């Protein structure tokens, strides 16, 4: 990651674009909706299990309270806005870039936040439904971190060289029919320099949704929930792993609690 010196101006003052204002309004609306509040209250207050208690988490806008988790300041402090040299930029990332400061792309965090919330929400729902989540990266510096965080939340990781056919030819690779992951989270979309990770196309082929941290040099077009942000510095990776871990644990706990309280979960 580029180390920009102190002579760079602080951008945060300038980030008062109409987009972010809209976002603020949007989030406040969600919190103020009466129905959601009632639902939350119901969940907490009900102690005696009843057969009639049916819950469809998809009908809540923010079932896992993710809006509180993601903060602009955290992202900025974790240097998530730093992109690559403008020469390395993928043209599909143009829309997520705020501007180019002395040959370096600066990612628009105003756009990152809603996208990240959407992605985290999706991860939480998958975890809630006991899906298999696979953490993927090939960035050597982050591998211990990613592997450790996957282990901590009881999920899976693949940070080793990608062998073609791991998903598409899984029966032969693993010697038997296996359950493929329900969600792949890419913490870095490149396997080698400027070479897309082999799992990207395989997930698309095998109908597996993806969440990926997309830096200015990665192609977000095939990724289901892209998060435009810096994927190279360890600090930002620590932030992402923290958020994702938190979300997964939260979802799993919630499932546990609901089952204890005798709720029936339905998706229809």
């Amino acid at each position, binding site marked *: 990651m580029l180390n920009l*010196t102190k002579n760079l101006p602080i951008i945060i003052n300038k980030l008062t674009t109409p987009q972010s204002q809209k976002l603020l309004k949007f989030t406040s609306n969600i919190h103020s909706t009466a129905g959601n509040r009632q639902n939350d209250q119901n969940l907490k207050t009900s102690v005696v299990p009843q057969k009639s208690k049916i819950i469809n988490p998809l009908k809540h806008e923010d079932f896992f309270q993710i809006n509180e988790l993601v903060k602009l300041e955290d992202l900025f402090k974790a240097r998530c806005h730093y992109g690559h040299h403008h020469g390395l930029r993928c043209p599909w990332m*143009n829309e997520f870039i705020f501007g180019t400061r002395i040959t370096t792309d600066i990612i628009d965090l105003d756009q990152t936040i809603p996208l990240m919330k959407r992605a985290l929400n*999706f991860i939480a729902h998958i975890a809630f439904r006991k899906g298999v989540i696979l953490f993927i990266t090939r960035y050597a510096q982050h591998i211990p971190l990613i592997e450790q965080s996957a282990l901590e939340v009881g999920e899976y990781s693949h940070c080793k060289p990608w062998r073609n056919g791991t998903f598409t030819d899984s029966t032969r690779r693993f010697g038997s029919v296996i359950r493929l992951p329900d969600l792949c989270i890419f913490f870095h979309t490149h396997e080698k320099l400027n070479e897309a990770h082999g799992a990207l196309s395989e997930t698309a082929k*095998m109908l597996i949704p993806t969440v990926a941290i997309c830096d200015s040099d990665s192609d977000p077009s095939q990724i289901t929930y892209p998060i435009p942000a810096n994927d190279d510095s360890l600090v930002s990776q620590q932030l992402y792993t923290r958020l994702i871990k938190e979300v997964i644990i939260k979802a799993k706990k919630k499932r546990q609690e609901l089952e204890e309280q005798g709720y029936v979960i339905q998706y229809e």
Partner: protein
Amino acid sequence: MAQSRINKAASIYTRLNGLIKSNLIKWSDRPLWYDIYKAFPPQRDPIYRSVLGNDVVAPLPKKLYYKEDELRAYFFKNISPIETIVLNSNMQQPNWETFISTYYEMEKMGLKKESLIDATIETLLAKGFYFKNNLKKTNNLIEQTNDKNNAESDSVKNEMKTLEGEISKSNLIETANVNVSPDSNNQKL
């Protein structure tokens, strides 16, 4: 498992929808993520896009410039060259940043634009600042920028080149206000 592996033709959701419609996948067998996707769809349908295809690429992002850049360039060119910064040490504010802050203070005080820079230098010298290499003073920054005919010999312009490729002087003032009209950047790749 019935699948369509043509990943470049359509997104995973549309392909899965098709499979369900054609009853290749039973409704009860649908993947776990299908409902969630349906309830919280992504911002954009994740279809494969090619740079060579018909998809429209978003306009190039703008270049970021501020008024401080001008001042900084002037400082490096005419007052004192740039110094190395040791990130490890507990360094105070660098000289040029002090220069810029005092410049703004003077501006607030209501001085005229022509004499602003001279005044800031004088105040700084009076405060006991030591500029490493006191270069010869040139004319006022504002005079130079106003004098458009002398564009080529303009020292400020040369300094700006070092900061960012090529930039015309007319843009210089505009970019300082950040609100740039990205007409020139509206390209198709």
